[in-house]
């Protein structure tokens, strides 16, 4: 099974990367942008999708400071 894990900083925790991007966009002329957050994308093939949650808690994310979201994808070729 193909899976995608999205990891993002928890709400309320300062996200310097997001701030940097948010400040850079107006400099390029893109106005009206707010609440930018930069996270991490992990894509993987797993035999047992039920193990994904534990993978996230133990390695792919740091639950103290990051939220994660698991998406199961179609087995596209």
């Amino acid at each position: 099974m193909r899976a995608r894990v999205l990891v993002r900083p928890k709400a309320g925790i300062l996200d310097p990367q997001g701030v940097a991007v948010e400040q850079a966009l107006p400099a390029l002329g893109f106005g009206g942008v707010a609440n930018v957050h930069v996270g991490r994308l992990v894509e993987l093939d797993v035999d047992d999708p039920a193990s994904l949650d534990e993978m996230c808690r133990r390695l792919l994310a740091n639950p103290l400071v990051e939220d994660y979201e698991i998406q199961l994808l179609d087995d596209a070729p």
Partner: protein
Amino acid sequence: MRTAVLQFPGSCDERDALAAARLVGDADLHWHRDRDLRGADVVVVPGGFSYGDYLRAGAIARFSPAMESVVELAGEGGLVLGICNGFQVLCEAGLLPGALLPNAGRRFTFRQVDLEVVRTDTAFTSACEPGERLSVPAKHSWGRYYAPEETLDALEAGGQVLLRYDSAHNFNGSLRDIAGVMNAAGNVFGLMPHPEHAVDARTGSTDGLRIFESLRLAVEGARA
């Protein structure tokens, strides 16, 4: 007293940590694949970029065989010191509370910082004078100490905050100016600044030696 200084792929401060530890006792480098700590009294998890900081700083190194032994040693009361990336590794391994986040100012920063010694009655700070300030270098891009407010309250109430940045030197935005924290049992300590780079007058301050001298006093005191 014998100190094992761990070495991961991507470590870069292990030589200075080794030299600093040798000023107060015997010390050896210890490759991370080697599970046997050979009776070391103290383990130093050094600074650098273990595993290239892939995923998150310290996230991969915590699973190395030597770290499994470090977790065991810590459980038995052995002394463990994590510096910079080593602090990140100890937090990821669950030996210390909290996490290190990207610096608030977004930049890698290298500067000398003044640290307030909060307590001098611990295995890591007993060679310091009460109220003493230590001048040591700090250099990192992921050094912003973070823990939830209730954890920070508990750390302060329990006397687990051993070092704070001078408020004008807290360049990374660490919560409550925290530069170094100890576990509740008092035998595991991590800090972002680098005491091992401040042990020789030829490179400036020798204040970092206090941390290593404290470890020696703790080990010798335990044997006496």
